């Protein structure tokens, strides 16, 4: 027997302790109601799910709006992880599914009956919305989500660095590659577009004069111009002028702020942080022409509110969406301009949002209007995923672009067939 004999340890006491711990566990389990029921109002309990915005104050803002609502008590789940889609999709299958959630317009959510028809609350104010934001949420004449914010994505750069390196603002992908090379010095890389390059897939396609899907919901991205663009990206990827393996992704302004790169692909939301760091030494430009025949482009991303049609409180949830994202214009403006910068989808709010009226924000709005492409509701998450794989397969890995696009076609066609027959 071992030296650790039982003499010192009364075995009774051990088991008593063990039983005590087990009991404690059970008790704790009963009290395991984690922060739910935090809302203020009476009436039904609603749960809403948000991904964590990076800007300070956002979570408090969303909770503040919810607390001001009197007809239901609204609890917020704030998911601080990039895995928001997975968490959302998995939760939607369960009893704990949120009653309302933010996401992007995707048709499979409509086809599977997951999101409720919001036409009756949107229609009265339909004309006040950016028409593109209505189109992107409409299937067969019904509107399925309310846009909260539009987020154009483009490049941020420091003009002083450009001047020093003798670089002008690039208008073609070749010029961008050249600029990245000239701006790369020792420890500073020329360009950052995110570690895995997924953020620039769509702009690359649009700037090549192609599109994700055409109006008949057929593949429109598989063109010789896109192939050429992918080859150029591969060249850039292997040039050593691209910042890779940065600790933060493209959406976080840190890489440019910390001086790891000279140009960064990011979004309108990060503009306040960049401005704080660089003052006036800051410029923006859209994604350059992939090929000479293309046109510069900007991805107008954003977030929308959806109501879970399979939830317990569909009507109450719709009421809340109407109250906050249709009626409460003050909150909508606060949400769009007080933390990060976003473009309000409501014309009337955009018209009064003074912060976006001048200087660089106004320039961002201009790029949004001039070069912007909105979400296509038929371009679903599985297709998006497939398009990311293209980047992985032929830009990060030295694969053949044609073959990578063929693989993507296979997945996309499978999806299209399931969705549209």
């Amino acid at each position, binding site marked *: 027997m071992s030296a650790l004999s*039982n003499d010192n340890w009364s075995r009774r006491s051990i088991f008593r302790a063990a039983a005590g711990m087990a009991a*404690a566990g059970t008790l704790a*389990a009963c009290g395991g109601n984690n922060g739910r029921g935090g809302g203020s109002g009476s009436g039904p309990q609603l749960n809403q799910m948000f991904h964590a915005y990076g800007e300070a104050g956002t979570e*408090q803002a969303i909770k503040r709006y919810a607390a001001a609502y009197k007809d239901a008590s609204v609890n917020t789940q704030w998911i601080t992880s990039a895995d928001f889609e997975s968490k959302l999709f998995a939760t939607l299958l*369960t*009893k704990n599914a949120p009653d309302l959630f933010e996401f992007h317009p995707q048709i499979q959510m409509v086809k599977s009956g997951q999101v409720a028809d919001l036409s009756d609350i949107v229609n009265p104010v339909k004309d006040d919305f950016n028409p593109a934001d209505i189109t992107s949420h409409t299937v067969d004449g019904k509107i399925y989500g309310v846009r909260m914010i539009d987020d154009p994505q483009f490049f941020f750069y420091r003009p002083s660095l450009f001047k020093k390196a003798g670089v002008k603002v690039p208008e073609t992908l070749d010029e961008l590659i050249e600029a990245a090379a000239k701006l790369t010095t020792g420890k500073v890389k020329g360009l950052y577009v995110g570690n895995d390059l997924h953020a620039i897939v769509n702009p690359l396609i649009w700037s090549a004069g192609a599109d994700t899907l055409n109006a008949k919901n057929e593949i429109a991205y598989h063109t010789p111009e896109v192939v050429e663009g992918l080859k150029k990206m591969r060249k850039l990827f292997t040039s050593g002028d691209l910042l890779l393996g940065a600790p933060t992704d493209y959406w976080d302004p840190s890489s440019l702020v910390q001086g790891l790169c000279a140009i960064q692909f990011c979004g309108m939301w990060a503009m306040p942080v960049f401005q704080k760091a660089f003052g006036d030494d800051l410029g923006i430009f859209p994604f350059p022409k992939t090929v000479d025949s293309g046109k510069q482009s900007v991805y107008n991303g954003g977030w929308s509110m959806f109501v879970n049609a399979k939830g317990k409180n569909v009507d109450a949830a719709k009421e809340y969406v109407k109250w906050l994202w249709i009626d409460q214009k003050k909150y909508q403006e606060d949400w769009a301009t007080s933390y990060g910068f976003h473009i309000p989808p409501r014309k009337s709010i955009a018209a009064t949002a003074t912060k976006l009226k001048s200087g660089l924000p106004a320039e961002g709005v201009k790029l949004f209007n001039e070069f912007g492409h909105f979400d296509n509701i038929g371009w679903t998450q599985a297709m998006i995923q497939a398009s990311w794989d293209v980047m992985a397969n032929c830009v990060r890995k030295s694969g053949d672009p044609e073959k990578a696009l063929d693989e993507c076609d296979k997945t996309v066609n499978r999806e299209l067939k399931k969705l549209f027959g």
Partner: protein
Amino acid sequence: MGNTGLYIATGVAAFFFLIPFYVLLRNALSTDPQITGEHWEFFPTNLQWGNVKELFDDPQVDFAQSLWNSTVVAVAMTVGILLVCSLAGYALARIPYKHANKIFYVVLGTLMVPTSVTFVPSFVLVSSLGWVDTYRGLIIPGLFSGFTCFLFRQYFLGFPKELEEAARVDGLGYWGAYWRVVVPNSLNFFAAIATITFINAWNAFLWPLVIGQDPGAWTVQVVLSSYMTNQTVVFHTIFMATAISILPLLFVFLFLQRWLVQGIAQTGIKG
């Protein structure tokens, strides 16, 4: 290999094994500009103990809550697994029953299927019980470890029969003999399994990731993972959180190491 060579080789290996701990502590006690600076600062002189306070004061993430969640889950799982699996392992090893073999194969069968493979339907099952975001959901589905049951069975097969027979002579049934004789004489093995179970429960990631939908139900590991993909990266907070998440286990380890080693030596985890 001479004695010097032996110590040099061990020292070099130890050096590499300690690097991650060094990096962890250095980053946890530095400021962000120090961490992301142009040159690697090997030994920051002004250690930022205030980082601890900053971590616990962070309004975005309730780190203290996650520590508490992990503690409850790990302790309850350890106690639960020891109880449930040891009893079943004992039955399979020592209580003659005509279907025992078949049942043993039912248990063995689960060894071949990594539970993670079925965690999607498991999640749906657990959620239809309404256990999402609860300690029950985090703890109970993990209690039925075929592997631990198997280990207990193997251990009890080698348990001296004479001891039990003596107990039987004293008029004890299986139940009495188990609690009065078998368990008290197996504390080393129980301690070894407990240590391993506790570590695994504390470090588990996939299941808590799926079950903890509400941040209030997150365990430490889920919080750490969320730091890595969070929109804002604050290095010193992240590393301080990691350091603190490891701390309890280091104590458990240093305290139980001898026990663990002896337990393993005694049972030998037979093949």
